[in-house]
C-alpha cells in the first residue's frame, strides 16, 4: 500500500470485504446441495481462489505494488502451487489401479 493510497477512500476494501463474505455464503449453499465430488471440489477451489486473489491484490496490497513485484510473486507462487499438485493422479491410482493401464 502506497502513502497516496493510504489516504484514499475505503470503498474498494469494503467491496472486497463484501465479496469475500458473499463467496463464503455461495460455498455454503453449494455444499448443502451435495453435488458430485468432482463438481464440489472444482466449485470450492474456484470460489476460494477468487477470494484469495481479491485478498492478495487488495487486502495485502499487491495490486498497488510495482508491476515487477506482481509478476515475480504471482508467477513463482502459481508455479509452486501447480507443481505441488502432481500427486493427485496417484490418489486415483490407489482407488482405481495404475493410471493409464486400461
Amino acid at each position: 500500500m502506497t502513502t497516496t493510497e493510504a489516504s484514499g477512500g475505503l470503498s474498494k476494501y469494503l467491496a472486497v470485504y463484501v465479496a469475500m463474505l458473499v463467496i463464503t455464503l455461495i460455498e455454503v449453499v453449494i455444499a448443502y446441495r451435495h453435488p458430485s465430488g468432482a463438481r464440489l471440489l472444482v466449485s470450492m477451489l474456484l470460489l476460494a481462489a477468487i477470494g484469495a486473489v481479491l485478498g492478495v491484490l487488495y487486502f495485502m496490497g499487491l495490486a498497488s505494488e510495482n508491476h515487477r513485484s506482481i509478476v515475480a510473486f504471482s508467477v513463482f507462487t502459481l508455479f509452486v502451487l501447480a507443481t505441488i499438485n502432481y500427486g493427485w493422479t496417484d490418489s486415483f491410482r490407489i482407488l482405481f489401479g495404475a493410471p493409464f493401464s486400461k
Partner: protein
Amino acid sequence: MSHSDVALGGHHVPVMEPSPFAVPAKKLAMWLFIISDIMTFAACLVAYGFLRNSTPNWPKPFQSSTIVSVMLMTFIMITSSLIMVLAVRAAKVGDRAGAFRYSMITLAAGLIFAVLHIREWFGMIAQGVTFYKNPWGTGLFGGAYFSVTGIELLHVIAALIALLIVSLGYKSGRYSAGDIENCGLFWQFINIVWMFVVPLVYLMNVAG
C-alpha cells in the same frame, strides 16, 4: 579514507544495491516468507485432498451446528482482515493511536477466532475423534483434520503474538509503520489460507 573506501578503490560507490522490486527489505522478506509458507499449506491441503480422494469411506461428520460455528469464525476472520487494513492505513499516515486501536481490535477478533477454533476441536474430541481413530470411517480423517486445522491455528496464535508485540512497540515508537504493514501482510495471509481450509476441510464434508 575509511577501510571500505580502500576496499572500493577510493571511489564513492553505493555499498548496498537498491532493493529489488522497489520494495523495502523487511517487506520483501515477509513476502518471501509468505510464499514459502504457501508451500507448507499447499502441501498440507494437497496431502489432505490426496487422502480424501483415495479413501472410499471418508467420513462426512460436520453437522449444521459446526458449519454455523465455522461461518461465524469466517465472518470474524474476514472482518478482522478489513480492520487490519484500517490499522495499516492509519500507520501509513502516522496515526499511531488509530493504528494501535485497529490492531487491538484485530487482536481481539483473532483471539475470539482462536477460542472458537479450540472449542471446535474439543467438540470433535468429545465425539471420539483422535489422530488415529474416529467413530465414522477411516482413521486417517482425524490426523488430516487436526493437522490442517492445527497448522492454521498455530499460525493464528503466532500472528496474534507478533501483532501484540509490534503494536505495543509501534505505539511506543520502537517500531515503524512498515512493521505494522508486515504484521498486516501475515494476518491477511492467514485469512486467505482460512478461505481454502473452510471449503476443503469443512464444507466438502458436510453431513447429509
